[in-house]
């Protein structure tokens, strides 16, 4: 594995990794603006917490679980092989340092688990969330990343979806989008609805924050998708173009659905449609033509705009529509490859509409079904166990009074100078906000 390093490819890969990292604060803004003002900090902390924790776990054992030599059946990598990035520091592969590839992939793990937080907004205990993040990345994300992203090469044996089923998934329609969406559904079902769901208004408290977040996500997505080419080459440029077009088409089609259905084109709709288009193009960005990217993004924007209404009909509180946007958009994109893939694109596969028959289509369908089922069941079990042992759902009273104050002892906005704050400098144990709340409660009980 001692080849020369290609400077251009390495520079692009490292830059792409930084772009993917930017998606974390992007997601924090995107989600944070959508919740009520009493829980924006917790919403953002779920993403920042995941970023800090997963980065470390990924280096310690996560990368090895996903990209170590296969332990059997294409199901899981060897967790010891690259533990702590052992033996990787001078290794190169395909002209880029293995370490650069490994941190790039680690940031995919960060964003995937962070996406789940949108399904359980306002009501998840932070400590339990962090335990969930560690468990989920280990038990769900790393295996699925092994299946989808770990290609066999030389003496290395990779995962079964990529190498045996020959799934086409360029940047993670299954491993990232379907995976997080199915997990979000399971987590929302186990934790239950927010107090007042469907009765109290739960409108976004800051749509400008949502728009900033959506913009940062799109910017970062160029690294996510075009960085997945792992080279600064023609394929990266084609993927980059598809990423631009699908986001644009998704935003437009979501707005058209809204204008026809509700009478208004909204800013939240533009941001959501853009993300829906980007979700759908994530697996397909290397498989479709630019016109195919417009079609796929457009279909995803419209389908997701309709899908977000499902939660009210079916009665589950997927608070920020992780299911409606990421699961549904991920399915549209991954299955869409079976129709819209064309041999002229980097993935070199023809879909049904380009004379390839159903050969690729069934492979895409199998992969979607397997990842969806595995993620849903495994997440359902993890969240249930955590709820019954540590307790995952916040107390109703604390949820109503606001998770930012109760869990983090902070409020996001100080808009009134007359709030009556007094300062206790240093740490005197009993003088904090939590102590004040506790005192207040014991007063009431007393």
């Amino acid at each position, binding site marked *: 594995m001692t080849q020369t390093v290609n400077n251009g490819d390495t520079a692009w890969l490292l830059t792409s990794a930084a772009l993917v990292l930017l998606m974390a604060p992007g997601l924090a803004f995107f989600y944070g603006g959508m919740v009520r003002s009493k829980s924006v900090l917790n919403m953002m902390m779920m993403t920042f917490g995941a970023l800090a924790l997963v980065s470390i776990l990924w280096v310690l054992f996560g990368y090895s679980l996903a990209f170590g030599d296969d332990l059997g059946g294409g199901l899981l990598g060897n967790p010891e092989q690259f533990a702590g990035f052992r033996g990787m520091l001078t290794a190169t592969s395909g002209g880029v340092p293995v370490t650069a590839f490994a941190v790039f992939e680690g940031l995919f793990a960060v964003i995937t688990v962070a996406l789940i937080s949108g399904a359980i907004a306002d009501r998840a205990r932070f400590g339990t969330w962090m335990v969930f993040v560690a468990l989920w990345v280990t038990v769900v994300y790393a295996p699925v990343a092994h299946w989808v992203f770990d290609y066999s090469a030389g003496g290395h044996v990779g995962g079964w979806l990529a190498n045996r089923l020959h799934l086409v998934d360029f940047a993670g329609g299954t491993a990232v989008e379907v995976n997080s969406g199915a997990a979000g559904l399971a987590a929302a079902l186990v934790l239950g609805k927010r107090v007042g769901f469907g009765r109290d*208004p739960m409108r976004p408290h800051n749509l400008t924050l949502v728009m900033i977040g959506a913009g940062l996500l799109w910017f970062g997505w160029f690294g996510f998708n075009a960085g997945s080419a792992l080279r600064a080459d023609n394929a990266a440029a084609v993927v980059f173009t598809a990423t631009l077009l699908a986001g644009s088409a998704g935003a437009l089609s979501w707005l058209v659905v809204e204008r026809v259905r*509700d009478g208004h084109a909204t800013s*939240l709709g533009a941001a959501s449609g853009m993300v829906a288009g980007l979700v759908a193009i994530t697996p397909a960005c290397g498989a479709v033509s630019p016109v195919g990217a417009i079609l796929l993004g457009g279909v995803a924007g419209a389908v997701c705009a309709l899908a*977000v*209404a499902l939660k009210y009909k079916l009665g589950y509180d997927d608070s920020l529509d992780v299911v409606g946007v990421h699961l549904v958009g991920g399915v549209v994109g991954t299955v869409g490859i079976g129709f819209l893939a064309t041999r002229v694109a980097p993935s070199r596969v023809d879909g049904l509409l380009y004379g390839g028959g159903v050969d690729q289509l069934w492979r895409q369908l199998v992969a979607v079904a397997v990842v969806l089922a595995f993620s849903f069941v495994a997440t359902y079990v993890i969240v249930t166990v955590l709820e019954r042992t540590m307790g995952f759902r916040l107390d109703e009273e604390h949820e109503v009074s606001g998770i930012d104050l109760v869990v983090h002892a902070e409020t996001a906005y100080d808009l009134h100078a007359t709030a009556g704050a007094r300062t206790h400098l240093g740490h005197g144990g009993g003088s904090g906000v939590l102590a004040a709340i506790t005192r207040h409660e014991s007063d009431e009980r007393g």
Partner: protein
Amino acid sequence: MKLVTAVIKPHKWEDVRSALEMVGVTGMTVSEVSGYGRQKGHTEVYRGAEYDIALVPKIRVEIVVEDEDADEVVISIVDSAKTGRIGDGKVWVMPVESVIRVRTGDQDVAAI
């Protein structure tokens, strides 16, 4: 002395202030408030979910005046705040027992 309180549409506030300056009012207390009357609220739509927003933003103006000035101040507010559409607001007058200027200790009419 009288306390004149007016609840008006936010975008009429500058008109009302100019009109009050014309009749010699030199100070007032203004707050941003919300409420509803016959105007009811409005509807907002987020990802297809409709919310009825009951409370409408308004401006509340409070002025303490001498008894004989009250009618002129009220008329001036009503004229300047009027758009003729629903939701223009209300003006009401209440008696005031005493007023003290904090800085000087001046009382009642001298403190206005």
